[in-house]
């Protein structure tokens, strides 16, 4: 059960119940659709850009607690960052949820570190990373649906 508590931390459960930056971003510069065919998670990520900087980001959709909380915490953590910074953050995040030897206290990740428990559940990595893949598609202006398969 302790691994389970590591996965479903309070922060994650809170963000699942009360996601931040949830809902359409009217007139967004970019948006992309993400879909996890395995479990049916669906997301739309909206982004406003000022040059290379994300000035606003929102999401909407439905899915499991991990995917919803991940999208919520992602929007909090990328706002105001440059695309290069976001790319680096995404790499660190992917490393956190997939690499058994990853540092749990990677300072650069901030609140995103709560997803460290995901690495014990390989089937859930796709849930945690869907929002990030979708964000990347949005900033790259891709219009095909991003899938985790």
């Amino acid at each position: 059960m302790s691994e389970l508590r590591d996965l479903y931390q309070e922060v994650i459960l809170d963000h699942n119940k009360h996601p931040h930056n949830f809902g359409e971003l009217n007139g967004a510069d970019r948006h992309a659709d993400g879909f996890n065919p395995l479990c049916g998670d669906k997301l739309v990520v909206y982004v406003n850009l000022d040059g290379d900087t994300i000035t606003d980001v929102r999401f909407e959709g439905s899915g499991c607690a991990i995917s919803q909380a991940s999208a919520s915490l992602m929007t909090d953590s990328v706002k105001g960052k440059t695309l290069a910074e976001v790319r680096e953050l995404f790499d660190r995040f992917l490393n956190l949820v997939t690499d058994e030897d990853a540092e749990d206290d990677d300072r650069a990740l901030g609140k995103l570190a709560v997803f460290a428990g995901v690495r014990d559940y390989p089937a859930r990595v796709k849930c945690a990373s869907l929002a990030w893949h979708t964000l990347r598609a949005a900033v790259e202006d891709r219009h095909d649906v991003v899938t985790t398969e």
Partner: protein
Amino acid sequence: MSSAEAASAVESVFEVQRIRRDFPILTRSIRDQNLVYLDNAATTQKPQRVLDALSSYYATGNANIHRGVYLLSEEATAAYDLARGKVQGLLNARAAHEIIFTRNSTESINLVAQSYGRQNLGPGDEILITHMEHHSNIVPWQLLCEQVGARLCVAPIDDDGTLQLDEFQRLISPRTRLVAVVHLSNSLGTINPVQDIVRMAHARGVPVLIDGSQSVYHMPVDVQALDCDFYVFTGHKLYGPTGIGVLYGRESLLEQMPPYQGGGDMIRSVTFDKTTYAELPHKFEAGTPHIAGAIGLGAAVDYLLSVGFEGIGRHEADLLAYGTNALSEVKGLRLIGTSPNKASILSFVMDGAHPHDIGTIVDADGIAIRTGHHCTQPVMDRFGVPATARASIAMYNTHEEIDALVKALEHVRETFAV
């Protein structure tokens, strides 16, 4: 006496504990707890008898079939043919050569689509299926429709997951060339009235394929009594190995159909000018087949019949009723698929908890259930849910395991404070 104890009294007649001892994996622990395996609609566990058949074939009987003049090859050929005979017996087919070995139900359906379908369907023709089909009984027909310009028609289902039989009958049109329906729905548990469906279709001269993937290990199937034209199933859901499946086909239809794949073993003679094909069933079994798989499937059929469908049916119906009641009492839980005529499947959603999270949380208690769309996305759309959690029952499950699931679902409610 608790309800679980009362239920155990029923079990003692069926001797579920004795059956459990036949399945080595059931003694495994998962995350330090006893494995509770409730994902039987995805695949069932294997009895020792099947494991022995596989290992003994490879250890003492391995040779290619239909080729050697040596004893070992003759033995392997005989064992492979014997397995075909066992499947013939299981389905009560008229002849052993009406049983074609494939990889799985999916390949069986693709075989019919590409062989029978391409030969007999053209532009404007129709294939009729139901809204509750597995993707494997949808996509092969969509491919065929693209190839020949035919149309896929879908019969609707009720809110409880029952097929609307009147609508189904109405949809059999003068252009309908094939009906393909699931016998027992993998995501709803609905048992379709396949006998009525065959009668309705045959009245309009339309052949019927039945997807028996979920039915063959729960109930006896008699293809002659059903009078169906094709019946498909997969070995690994019938307590057999993966990689071996079955297509039953009516001889007169199989005879007319062109081969599905070309290669060795399916020919009579080959020259660069002209090749003639082998007799049934070999015409449809190109290349070296899954010999061990067929032998393992034969052992699984023996095992299933030795336990007997009467006891299995009674025990599983009892578990389904017990599980339906127990789950209905879990606060915030809604069963998806409540047809009066159903078997073995408990599909559900819970307020505030996504099925995927339910699956992960009950896994912490050693309980294996399936979460997702179960390869039936149209069913999920029909019920307005992205996914469901699904517990599915087999002969070795117990009332205590249902209790364990209900207890684990309380952990789900605690986690999400539902």
